[in-house]
């Protein structure tokens, strides 16, 4: 029997000595430990930098706001706060608390009679949903495609990279606009349209990493030992490109939120959901600029900026992990 207290590093190789179920458990334990160690080390490096720490706090703050939005927001974001006969109640908006002390609305109401503060709170949900989903899929698809192309090479590589080249020929925002116009204006379609284009950069970078990784001795050793392609890709290549995937994931959060805001601002936002982009769009549509109603259009932009810059800073923190020369 192999010593069970301290699993040998050759645990993978001496199959005969351990019985089936125990071997499975050990393998999982070992995998788990490796992942925990890698992630822990990266986390420590990441939180070393003050700016990155600030960025993470900001991100965590907005996440908390998004999760607890129903408890924070005093009103439903798309509930009219008062009724009039007129279809549009432009002349009737309520001033914010700091201007009219009798007002019950922290940031006043929009020209349509919606509570601005509640819209701002709920807007964080749309932004983070778009950002996180796009990031996960961008990094996931990009890594998978990049590893497959880089590891197999040849025709598979050629085909996949031509698709990536084609995607690089598409302008981001115009493509998202056309896709959303085609699929209908909903948040899910916006997310989908962003993902369709965004994985291209991750795929390209991960591929070039995989190209060099597959020539390394440990991959050759695994091949000789008879490991399957999937095993090599998932166990030997993936952990090595992980920081790069995270880096592109973090950047994808930022780009996706910017893209969503832009598409919504143009007027293709989800009509049933409030996002910071749709807030800016409606403030523009009701000429809030000309009326000087800055409490309507200044806060959403600041929120977008804060979340996006946090994404960029976390990404930059990761860049220092993947490229030690920057440190």
């Amino acid at each position, binding site marked *: 029997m192999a010593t069970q207290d301290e699993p040998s590093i050759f645990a993978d190789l001496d199959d005969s000595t351990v019985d089936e179920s125990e071997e499975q458990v050990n393998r999982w334990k070992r995998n788990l430990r490796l992942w925990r160690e890698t992630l822990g080390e990266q986390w420590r490096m990441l939180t070393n930098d003050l700016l990155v720490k600030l960025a993470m706090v900001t991100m965590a703050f907005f996440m908390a706001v998004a999760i607890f939005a129903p408890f924070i927001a005093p009103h439903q974001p798309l509930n009219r706060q008062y009724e009039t006969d007129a279809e549009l109640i432009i002349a009737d908006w309520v001033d914010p608390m700091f201007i009219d002390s009798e007002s019950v609305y922290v940031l006043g109401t929009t020209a349509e009679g919606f509570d601005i503060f509640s819209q701002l709170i709920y807007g964080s949900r749309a932004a983070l949903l778009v950002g996180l989903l796009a990031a996960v899929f961008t990094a996931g698809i990009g890594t998978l495609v990049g590893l497959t192309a880089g590891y197999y090479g040849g025709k598979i590589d050629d085909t996949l990279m031509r698709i990536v080249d084609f995607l690089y020929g598409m302008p*981001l925002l115009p493509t998202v606009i056309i896709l959303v116009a*085609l699929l209908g204006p909903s948040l899910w379609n916006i997310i989908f349209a962003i993902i369709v284009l965004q994985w291209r950069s991750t795929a390209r970078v991960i591929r070039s990493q995989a190209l060099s990784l597959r020539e390394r001795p440990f991959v050759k050793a695994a091949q000789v030992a008879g490991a399957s392609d999937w095993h090599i890709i998932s166990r030997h290549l993936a952990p090595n490109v992980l920081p790069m995937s995270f880096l592109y994931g973090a950047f994808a959060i930022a780009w996706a939120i910017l893209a969503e805001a832009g598409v919504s601002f143009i007027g293709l936002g989800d009509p049933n959901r409030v996002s910071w982009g749709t807030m800016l769009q409606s403030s*523009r549509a009701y000429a809030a600029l*000309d009326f*000087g109603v800055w409490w309507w259009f200044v806060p959403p932009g600041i929120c977008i*900026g804060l979340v*996006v*810059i946090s994404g960029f800073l976390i990404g930059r923190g990761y860049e220092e992990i993947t490229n030690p020369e920057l440190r």
Partner: protein
Amino acid sequence: MSKASFVVRRVLQLGVTFWAVGTVLFFLFRLMPGDPTSFVVSAQMTPEARQRIIESFGLNDPLHVQYIAFLRNALTLDFGQSFHTNEPVRDVIWTFLPNTLVLMLTAFVIAYILGITLGVFTGWYRGTNFEKGTVVTALTARSVPTFYVGLIVLWIFGAGLGVIPMSGMGTSGMDGGWWSRIFTTTFLHHLLAPAAVLAFYYMGYPLLIMRSSMMEVLSQDFIDVCRAKGLRERTIMFKHAARNAMLPILTAAAIALGYAVGGSVLIETVFGWPGIGREMVRAVLRRDFPVAQGTFMVLAATIIILNFVADLLYGYLDPRVTYD
């Protein structure tokens, strides 16, 4: 692989990319819900007149016939007629593209001059508060959406102080050709705000690239040699380090310019700039397929061609690049 065969292969790839973008676009627009003819065909029309118009656009033909006609016309840069105004799409493009180019190029030149200079300084003064501050500013500039900065600028300087116009180029109704119009003070006055906002946004990219490129160059031996020779710091900074750090900027600039034209959509919408991006959005919103298709192709073509230029430029500027 030799350089010539690399170029030939790259040109072929260019053609294939164009074909792929056009094809995807063609089918996407045919899949779009809503009857495009409802915008041209008014309700009072007799059914015969209506039929005639639909046929004149070729909208009744089977899809593959339409597709072949589309490809044939695309080769001669003929994207059909606007459903909305009946104007040939080519004319629409010629009306709006120059406006986009003049805005983008102005902003781009300003952004790259400022960005590169600041990048040289931040790379040189690495680890100082100046460096940290500049990098954070650059990141902020790239994080806040351009259209939002545009809104704020319009609010403060337009609606508030009244020193900049709220919208447009200010040249409609002017006499003379396009060139004589853009050299008027009215035009420059209208150009100021959008160009400044864009330049502020674009600046971050060359700044950050130049900074990391400078850091790389500064760690090389020849910089120490320069110091040992007793050259002045400024001389080393600009004449030796910066010049060698320029290479990544040039190719990045070509690619970024392509994406800048593609990203013109938002800033043109905010400032009411009659450019190709805004026209594309309007065409999409009113289901004007031919115009949307044509303007999108122009935006995509700019990106594709500039990517191609960047590839060639790289090999030309850096002889160490091998073609494989």
